[in-house]
């Protein structure tokens, strides 16, 4: 193996060590940044309406205000409770505690 190739392999080794260290360091910093953003957003929540929550609320309103005039898409509280219980049980049985 020539001296030049040895030098190049050494340089590649340094690039590997420095490159992977910087990639990990940068992305770990970004993880911290994302946690910081999440903390900030929890502390200062905006007045945005989460479509999912809004939809649930609409369903609740509909079912409580007008039980006799259910639209075809409405879900009764009993069915919603059954689905919630099933999901809860599934998560507890399949995921690590």
């Amino acid at each position, binding site marked *: 193996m020539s001296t030049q190739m040895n030098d190049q392999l050494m340089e*590649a080794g340094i690039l590997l060590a420095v490159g992977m260290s910087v990639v*990990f360091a940068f*992305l770990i910093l970004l993880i911290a940044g994302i*946690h910081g953003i*999440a903390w900030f*957003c929890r502390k200062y929540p*905006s007045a945005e309406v989460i479509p999912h929550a809004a939809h649930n609320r609409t369903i609740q309103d509909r079912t409580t205000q007008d039980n006799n005039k259910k639209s075809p898409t409405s879900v009764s509280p009993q069915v919603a409770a059954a689905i919630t219980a099933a999901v809860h049980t599934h998560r507890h049985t399949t995921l690590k505690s």
Partner: protein
Amino acid sequence: MEKLLILWDSTSIPHFEPGQIVMMLVGFGLLYLAIVRKFEPLLLLPIGFGALLTNIPLAGFSEAGGLLHYIYYVGVDTGVFPLLIFMGVGAMTDFSALIANPRMLLLGAAAQFGIFATLFGAILLNGLPWFDFSMQDASAIAIIGGADGPTAIFLASKLAPELLGAIAVAAYSYMALVPIIQPPIMRALTTPEERKLPMAQLRVVSKKEKILFPLAVLVLTLIFLPAATPLVGMFCFGNLLKECGVVDRLSYTAQNELINIVTIFLGLGVGSKLSADKFLTVETLGILALGAVAFSIGTATGVLMAKLMNKLSKDNINPLIGAAGVSAVPMAARVVNKVGLESNPHNFLLMHAMGPNVAGVLGSAVAAGILLALVGP
């Protein structure tokens, strides 16, 4: 008779060189892969057609004054086209899965090992008499392991423009071959039980988080890795257009008309580099082989990192999602989902794999910035 000879001489037939015919066959091969096999058609079709045009004798498409010559020097040589593509990709990317589970960035980081490890392969090939890769060439080749076309073209245009055609073709070919290359590696490195692991549902991410995310990435990049800001900056700009919600017209343009127009010109520009003297070399074979090695190592290290994280974490992490860390959005995530479903038909890993998948885009852009800073001109 003399007139007939002049007419004969004005046709391409007497001017064809064997290399040009071979390269036109390569161009037809790329068109076949794009149209019939649906392998990355958006890029391989214009690249294949560009290869046809550039090898037409007497037409002078790639000579000074030719259309492809200008397209290449305006958009590819300057690095403008890959950056505009990156902006469009940013405008099409949803970071929700990553913001909801930021640890997935570690998988995007681990999968970049393929890039740096391939530097050794390129240098070792210099031991053979047909190869003479410089460290800049080796870096441009190794970035194929990032499985990100624009990043590979951007870095190659800066570090090794003479290898650009082969590097671009290798990068897009391997991205198209993700469903063939990755699954055997994923199965070899995981147990059937690991592949069945379900993962906890991701939390809902607020709009404010999605708006702040690209700004945070940009600030970190400009402070710690300014060499990566062309790629990361345009990516973040595109993503901010999408997430801020006040410039829908610009976001729409970035992710539709603009990226489509640039894709056409980028493909033709790269195709113009597929001339016989530059492509029909033993070096091209070396680049194709090294690209496959880089891609495979990146997949393996992503999976191994996910296994390690699963061991250390209290929550399940299915090791398969580590394979998506190589980027190749969204193909790699789809492959993870498919392999996961083979082991457990009720286990949908697509959204979980999108986290490391988009992390891989950032990781490969950061790796390109590092290579540019350390071995760049």
